[in-house]
């Protein structure tokens, strides 16, 4: 199956594909973003769910720790305790706090020079800690330059120090430092020292490890400086920070992340690379301490669902494309195949080949309509051409009968060889376009007897012409053996009757004139009476009683009638094509007009009389068409020459 890239099928297919591609693409993008949104929503929800309880727990712990620390700092600052009293107080409160905040593992009180219980200017630091279940207090020193002391002294408010792994207490520790204030003699509040509450955050490890997060998400806790405090991968804790985790992330992304955490407090952050992979992160900023609690879903895991949906989508699209491709091909080739066949058929038809195969197309669509119309057109064309042929044939037939009429009949007496000085005779025949029945005849039976005949065969065309030819021959033949007009007609009638199934009757008027006397015997077979113009100019119709037309009644006996022509008399024979001729108004020429015209023709010779009558007829009919043959035969009897 050759694919015509200019063809309808191809163009349509391409157009449909373009459309489908646009639709699919739109669907894809829409559904993708939709799924993206849904996933984010789900992660958000999950993140929130999982974080809330844990963050609350941590918050509560550190709040308690903070409150505890602030209370102890206040107490120490407001009372003037001795060294022993201080130690005692520290041990007591440390033990006591175990019940409420068991994560507190140690406390430190470090003083400014001159602010310590013994008012010494030296360093004074007491560290109380748990050893097993009991508490002990020891000395400490070298603290003035330590961050925890300095930062608290500088900021003069409670601070959470960066967690670390204690070397003294081998656990991850976070220290809450708060300044100790003493009111001096002047009533001014003065910085006296720093109280530390050491809180173990070993519990975080277990908390993280036991946290159930679906989609392979895990929890991470970051300190204020984004140090990883807790992570499922233990080796990372206190070693990595967020930046190092997000190796592949740009600096900008990190900044964006920090901003997000600070401004939104909790939410979903997408796209940073954690552990070297893209991930979705649900972050919660903790209230009590400037830490961040993260739930991390590595991209490839949470995206898995989305990806599987995308894959399924891609497969469905592909399947859809393939299916639609096949359908389009089927439909358009169904259309273009018959169209092509129709084009071929049209070409053949144009070359006159009617055998061209027109495809039969079932259905009710435009293609089947076209094919049906085509078939109808071919049938009509065939019929039309046949009709044309028939018409051509008819025209040819008519031309044939015309040429017979005009060719066979003698045009003048010289041709016929019957001219003499006792008479003058002239024929006239104007066949109508589709007629063929009128004719005249004239010939001598012997030296002194002239036969004249005018006849009108019923019907038109070739059949009439043939009957005309036959009757002419029959009459001529009979005239060789008969001298009686009635006998001739009787025989003619019988002869023609036996061979005339179509009943093409003939009206005829025949006369035999004795040229010595001018006496004429005539017979009328249903024909119009001729007119006579006497020498004196008077005109009248011959008293001719019509018998029945020839070929109508069997064994009919025709009657001989007579008339006498005197010298100078003119006998005017005609067919009804003359008298029945109509003008545009529908009026017929008629007998009266004929007589009038004949009278006016005067002393013209027969040929001129014919022309004259024709002229008058033309004047009368004008533009109206000629419907029937017009035949005339004019005979003037001149008598015996006086001096011959």
């Amino acid at each position, binding site marked *: 199956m050759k694919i015509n890239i200019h063809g309808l099928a191809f163009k349509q297919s391409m157009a449909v594909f373009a459309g489908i591609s646009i639709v699919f693409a739109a669907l894809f993008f829409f559904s993708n973003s939709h799924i993206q949104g849904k996933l984010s929503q789900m992660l958000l929800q999950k993140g929130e769910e999982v974080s809330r309880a844990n963050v609350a727990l941590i918050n509560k712990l550190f709040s308690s720790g903070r409150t505890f620390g602030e209370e102890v700092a206040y107490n120490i600052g407001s009372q003037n305790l001795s060294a022993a009293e201080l130690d005692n107080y520290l041990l007591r409160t440390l033990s006591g706090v175990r019940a409420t905040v068991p994560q507190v593992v140690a406390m430190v009180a470090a003083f400014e020079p001159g602010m310590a219980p013994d008012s010494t200017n030296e360093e004074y630091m007491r560290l109380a800690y748990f050893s097993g279940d009991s508490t002990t207090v020891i000395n400490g020193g070298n603290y003035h330059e330590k961050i925890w002391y300095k930062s608290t002294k500088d900021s003069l408010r409670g601070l959470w120090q960066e967690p670390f792994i204690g070397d003294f207490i081998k656990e991850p520790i976070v220290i809450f430092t708060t300044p100790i204030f003493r009111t001096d003699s002047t009533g001014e509040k003065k910085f006296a020292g720093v109280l530390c509450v050491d809180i173990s955050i070993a519990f975080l490890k277990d908390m993280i490890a036991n946290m159930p997060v679906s989609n392979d998400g895990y929890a991470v806790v970051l300190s204020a400086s984004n140090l990883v405090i807790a992570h499922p991968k233990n080796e990372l804790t206190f070693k990595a920070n967020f930046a190092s985790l997000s190796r592949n992330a740009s600096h900008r992304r990190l900044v964006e992340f920090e901003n997000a955490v600070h401004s939104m407090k909790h939410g979903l952050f997408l796209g940073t690379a954690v552990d070297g992979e893209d991930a979705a992160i649900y972050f919660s900023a903790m209230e009590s301490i400037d830490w961040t609690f993260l739930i991390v879903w590595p991209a490839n895991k949470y995206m898995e669902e989305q990806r599987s949906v995308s894959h399924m989508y891609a497969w469905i699209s592909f399947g859809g494309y393939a299916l639609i491709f096949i359908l389009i091909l089927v439909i358009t080739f169904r259309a273009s195949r018959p169209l092509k066949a129709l084009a071929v058929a049209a070409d053949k038809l144009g070359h006159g080949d009617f055998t061209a195969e027109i495809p039969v197309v079932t259905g009710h669509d435009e293609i089947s309509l076209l094919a049906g119309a085509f078939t109808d057109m071919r049938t009509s064309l065939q019929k039309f051409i046949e009709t044309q042929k028939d018409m051509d044939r008819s025209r040819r037939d008519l031309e044939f009968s015309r040429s017979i009429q005009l060719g066979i009949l003698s045009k003048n007496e010289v041709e016929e060889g019957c001219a003499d000085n006792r008479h003058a005779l002239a024929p006239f025949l104007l066949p109508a376009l589709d007629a063929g029945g009128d004719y005249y005849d004239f010939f001598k039976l012997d030296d002194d007897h002239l036969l004249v005949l005018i006849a009108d065969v019923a019907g038109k065309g070739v059949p009439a012409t043939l009957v005309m030819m036959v009757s002419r021959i029959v009459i001529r033949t009979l005239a060789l053996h008969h001298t009686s007009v009635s006998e001739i007609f009787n025989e003619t009638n019988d002869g023609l009757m036996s061979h005339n199934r179509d009943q093409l009757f003939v009206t005829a008027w025949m006369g035999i004139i004795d040229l010595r006397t001018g006496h004429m015997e005539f017979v009328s077979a249903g024909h119009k009476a001729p007119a006579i113009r006497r020498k004196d100019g008077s005109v009248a119709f011959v008293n001719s009683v*019509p018998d029945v037309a020839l070929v109508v009644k069997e064994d009919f006996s025709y009657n001989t009638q007579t008339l006498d022509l005197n010298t100078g008399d003119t006998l005017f024979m005609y067919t009804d094509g003359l008298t029945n001729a109509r003008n545009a108004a529908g009026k017929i020429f008629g007998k009266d007009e004929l007589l009038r015209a004949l009278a006016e023709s005067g002393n013209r010779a027969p040929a001129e009389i014919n022309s004259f009558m024709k002229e008058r007829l033309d004047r009368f009919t004008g533009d109206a068409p000629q419907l029937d043959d017009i035949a005339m035969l004019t005979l003037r009897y001149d008598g015996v020459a006086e001096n011959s």
Partner: protein
Amino acid sequence: MEIVKTRKDVTMMLAIEGRLDSLTSPQLEAEIVGKLDGVAHLIFDLSKLTFISSSGLRVLLLTQKIMDTQGSMTIRNLPQEFREYFDETGFSRVMRIE
């Protein structure tokens, strides 16, 4: 040209309306030839005839010949204007005209 054909037993009536010329005669001929089986009386009603030419006369003659062998033919209500034609051609002597 319209032909109204009515048949009652052995009698058939053909009413001709319009022209009976070379164009319309074949139509009448088609109603006659082979269609007159069992008809003993054929009647032509020519009251609505507007024109008749030799072709029309020919078909009537044809019908007459057929009816001559099996019954009779009658022409009724021949308009006066065509009477002369029938007389002149002698047809009024061949056919029964009422």
